[in-house]
């Protein structure tokens, strides 16, 4: 008896690759869409050769960590976004009745194989950035280089789950979670010095988006945060990723306990 999750996963991959032309365009298109983020940074950077006081290769490394982290999270748990559709249509009742984890089912039920392209592309950008940027190599830095995108992926994955959970109370909340997932992805890819005021305090340090890419990259480059964050925080992204994941998990459990079927 094969693992039921794997069977659901295989069924999804089969069904989504049925319309081949569409799948091919979709795969290429979603890869190009991620490339567009890089193009945007490059175009804006090109205006005067720096962004927020950082040079091109340094910014590229920040983009690289975010470009590798986000698609991994999107591939792994991005489909929980569909929760609001299931709550609305009542399909979530069926999910709860099955003898499998509800979160696990949601993750595999809408698995989107087209997102693999973005993961590969993001990792390629990261590798290129690592070669190009003046990284101060040492053993702790090497460990951070490996763990930073994974911690970032965990962070974004937690944001995806937390955003979807809101649908238990508020069905049409989808766009709000977009602000923190896709909006957060944009915030994380830039040096935090670009942002200002209350917005920076809230997004970068309050919600923790600085930990995804900006702070670890500062550690890789051997620089201190010009905004004055203590040096030790630059190494903390795996811890914050874990913390946010635990919080998101607790929020999900609370959400499920509050789920009341639409009753239709």
């Amino acid at each position, binding site marked *: 008896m094969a693992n039921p999750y794997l069977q659901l996963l295989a069924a999804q991959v089969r069904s989504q690759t049925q319309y081949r032309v569409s799948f091919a*365009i979709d795969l290429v298109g979603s890869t190009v869409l991620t490339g567009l983020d890089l193009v*945007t940074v490059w*175009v804006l950077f090109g205006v005067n050769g720096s962004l927020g006081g950082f040079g091109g290769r340094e910014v590229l490394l920040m983009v690289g960590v975010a470009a590798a982290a986000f698609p991994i999270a999107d591939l792994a748990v991005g489909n929980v976004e569909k929760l609001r559709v299931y709550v609305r249509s009542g399909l979530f009742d069926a999910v709860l009745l099955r003898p499998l984890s509800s979160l696990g089912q949601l993750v595999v039920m809408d698995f989107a194989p087209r997102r693999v392209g973005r993961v590969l592309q993001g990792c390629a950008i990261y590798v290129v950035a690592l070669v190009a940027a003046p990284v101060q190599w040492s053993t702790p830095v090497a460990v951070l280089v490996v763990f930073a995108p994974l911690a970032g992926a965990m962070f974004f994955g937690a944001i995806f789950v937390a955003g979807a959970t809101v649908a238990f109370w508020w069905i049409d909340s989808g766009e709000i979670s977009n602000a923190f997932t896709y909006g957060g992805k944009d915030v994380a890819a830039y040096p935090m010095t670009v942002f200002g005021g209350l917005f920076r305090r809230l997004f970068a340090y309050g919600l923790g988006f600085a930990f995804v890419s900006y702070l670890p990259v500062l550690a890789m480059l051997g620089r201190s945060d010009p905004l004055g964050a203590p040096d030790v925080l630059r190494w903390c992204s795996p811890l914050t990723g874990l913390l946010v994941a635990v919080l998101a998990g607790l929020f999900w459990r609370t959400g499920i306990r509050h789920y009341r079927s639409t009753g239709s």
Partner: protein
Amino acid sequence: MAGTIASGTRVLVALAGAGFRRYATYRQATIAGAFTNTVFGFVRCYILLSVADVTGDVAGYAPGQLVTFVWVGQGLLAVVNYWGQQELPERVRSGEVVSDLLRPVDLMAGFIAADVGRAGHAMLTRFVVPVVVGLLAFDFYLPAHPQTYPLFAVSVLLAVLVCSACRYVVSLTAFWLLDIRGVLMVWVVCSGAGSGLYFPLPVLPDWLVTVLWVGTPFPALLQAPLDVLVERGGTGHGLALVAGQVAWVLVAIGMARVVQRRALTRLVIQGG
């Protein structure tokens, strides 16, 4: 004949009204969407301002103009609605489009009328929130000439029409492909990058900007109304932009008609 035109117009107005009321019932989604546009407004605004901080301007846009460009752009995104939910492709796939075609209203005219009603609702809700936040939080460029406001209104309406006709063409590809996710993705990439949503188009090389304006409808979706509003190049340039939009409305609707004719020859109704 006059009676037919009058009743046809009445139907389209009624469809636009229905589009307006339909979206007026999605209150949670409206609030959520406006919130997201506002967050993206902050992100894009800070990024562009930080670029302008070094050079004093970005491709000829002063910081105040950039602020207006970003926040009004975020407001217009929902009005012009590049990426809204689409029902038509699903109706083509399932065959339900047959009942749409049986109605005494042209499929495209009905689609565009309902979309204009939706845009009207978005203008009163989704447009207002980010613009007010931008006005309060940043140093916003306000048009110096009073005639800019009506010109902007016309430009927005034309942008809605161009976008609606383009999305109609995108939806009709379902007659050939059944599953249009791929085409939709191409549309999302091109309309986002080519319309000035991610960055004002003049930061690109001149030849590329010219190709985009002349060869694609994308700048007519967002860059044109925004350039009119921030008075880039003055009223004369604004009028030229609006004239260009009119041309794109005609081209897009003409293309939609051709595609529709060809698509309907592919329609096979099974059963009785």
